[in-house]
């Protein structure tokens, strides 16, 4: 789950990482009130989950109430790379002496945590990495050892941070590591981490991605839900706990396993079709999950045919079949289904579908993935 900047700052605050005082606002009046509360000058920042907000005019400085109002009016509703701004974050503006970059993420190849620290912050780190790779300190941290203050301090020295910033930066880096590990983040990034003329160091931005698998031990995440940038189909799927991504094509896809689901997209594409979505019902899905998946697909106006591609391992064929029968009883599907069912209990599943007496106009079975792809694309393009 990606957090908006203001949510990331709220998360940082749980771990005592210093951020600027401010407030979120959904309307111009709320923004003005937040600005008055934070104290001028303020920065009005668009809350969208995409980089390059500043360049797009989504971050503006206001010295007084009139300017705060003017900027909030301009930014709310603005389209930034396809993301419409529904909320702004208004915070007290900081004097900036220098800008740095720091982040923690998991390096899959090394199987360890990766800290990146750079004296060149406030810009896209990818650009720094390309143009001046030596400016980025990369430090692998064994999760068994964790990160000590001594190691963090040495990294600050190696990154050539000025003497007066080192204490503050070390403190924040250690806290950010705690936030990243205890907080189960896939990514915890501060860009920029700023040094003020007063010598204080603090987080001027926050980019946090939470690991959804750890949700069971973080009841506090509940507060972050509900405002994510999902389309209607994705919201519906999320309510049903389905792994769903909306796409623009006409073939609705349901498969078990991320690999097979992706592969289904590939095959549909190769035989001249286009996928309306990615939907992985996961391992061990039961009849109810299958029925829910079909409801989500049915909600999508663009879907002309539905490809159910199941290769049962932990998922059992008879459960998949029961779900289809149940879904057909529950909802009037607008598009025909083409199913390819193999693996665990596929025989039983096929028998259940046969016994249900579903007409061929609604459901067809094909023996292979490729054959099913051709049939389903044929129906979608007809």
């Amino acid at each position, binding site marked *: 789950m990606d957090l908006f900047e203001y949510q990331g700052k709220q998360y940082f605050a749980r771990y005592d990482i210093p951020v600027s005082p401010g407030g979120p606002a959904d309307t111009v009046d709320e923004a003005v009130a937040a600005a008055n509360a934070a104290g001028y000058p303020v920065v009005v920042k668009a809350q969208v989950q995409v980089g390059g907000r500043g360049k797009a005019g989504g971050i503006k400085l206001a010295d007084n109430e009139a300017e705060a109002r003017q900027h909030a009016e301009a930014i709310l509703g603005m389209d930034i790379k396809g993301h419409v701004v529904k909320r702004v974050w208004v915070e007290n503006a900081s004097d900036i002496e220098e800008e740095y970059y720091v982040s923690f993420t998991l390096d899959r190849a090394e199987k360890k945590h990766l800290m990146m620290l750079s004296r060149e912050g406030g810009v896209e780190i990818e650009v720094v990495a390309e143009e001046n790779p030596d400016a980025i300190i990369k430090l692998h941290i064994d999760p068994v050892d964790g990160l000590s203050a001594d190691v963090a301090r040495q990294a600050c020295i190696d990154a050539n941070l000025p003497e007066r910033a080192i204490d503050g930066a070390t403190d924040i880096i250690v806290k950010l590591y705690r936030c990243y590990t205890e907080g189960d983040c896939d990514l915890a990034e501060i860009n920029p981490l700023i040094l003020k003329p007063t010598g204080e160091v603090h987080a001027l931005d926050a980019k946090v991605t939470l690991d959804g698998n*750890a949700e069971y031990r973080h009841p506090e995440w509940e507060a972050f839900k509900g405002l994510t940038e999902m389309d209607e189909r994705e919201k519906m799927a999320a309510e049903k706990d389905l*792994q769903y991504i909306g796409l623009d094509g006409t073939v609705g896809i349901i498969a078990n396993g*991320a690999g097979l689901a992706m592969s289904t997209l590939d095959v549909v594409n190769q035989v001249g079709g286009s996928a309306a979505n990615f939907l992985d019902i996961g391992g061990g899905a039961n009849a109810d999950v299958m029925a829910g998946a079909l409801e989500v697909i049915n909600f999508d106006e663009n879907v002309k045919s539905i490809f159910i591609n199941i290769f049962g391992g932990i998922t059992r064929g008879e459960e998949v079949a029961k779900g289809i029968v149940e879904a057909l009883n529950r909802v009037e599907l607008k598009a025909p289904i083409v199913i390819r069912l193999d693996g665990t209990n596929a025989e039983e599943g096929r028998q259940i579908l046969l016994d249900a007496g579903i007409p061929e106009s609604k459901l067809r079975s094909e023996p292979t993935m490729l054959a099913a792809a051709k049939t389903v694309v044929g129906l979608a393009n007809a």
Partner: protein
Amino acid sequence: MAIFVNENTKVLVQGLTGGQGKYHGRRNRDYGTQIVGGVTPGKGGQDVDGIPIFNSVAEAVEATGADASFAAVPPKFASDAIIEAAEAGIGFVVCITEGIPAQDEALTFNRLVREFPNTRLLGPNCPGIISPGKCNIGITAGEIAQEPTADGPNVGIVSRSGTLTYQALYELKQLGIGVSTCVGIGGDPVPGTNFIDCLAEFQNDPETHAIMMLGEIGGSAEEEAAEFIQANVTKPMSAYIAGVTAPAGKKMGHAGAIVSGGKGTAQGKMDALAAAGVKVGLNPTEAGELMGEIVKSL
């Protein structure tokens, strides 16, 4: 020969009294795998279909001489289960659990490396391993795996995706090609066993004559495998990478596949493998057909 397991492998099921553990533990036994016991704290002394349950892995190892474990426990308990098996001296742990937090995986992996270097973890979030006719640990339906023939040629399969593992087995079975061992390594961020571990074993396994590899977008595991293949693998290979049409920046499914910044794309992975001499198919069926041609030429 087979890799990691064989007909003598004695397997414990951690979580045998749970839904998945019971179902798949029984199926593995029915397939012919030596399932010698189950472990569920507090349920020692009971049995599941005649398979004795023990309170701890150590107790079970003592009583049964088990050398492998099949961990079918919920995400919350998976890391502890893996470490408990390693502490008890189990040399091969297969963990099918889906949904373990990435940080737990990273910690568990690094603990194993340091404290229990003789324990190999397969998974988590993987379908397991099957050496057709000899041993099946995990959730693969045994009937889709073609048994190897004495004189070959037989194919070793390694796959990052669960369902594509079955698909690969299925494709080879359609062509009547024997499988020496099929390993599903799982698509989680920190798998205990990776492509390279399996490729190295297959290269040294006299019963494996060719190798089929199934990858997916995201990360750099396939690119690293390609480098390894170039330098170390002399056996012919075919491969398929899922996610050719996946849109950039979208996370497809649980944890396996994410494309960012142009890295980890399916095309990049396919190119790397092709450059290493691997025949790359555009879908699983084509990868199977390519393997069919390879096998014919052997």
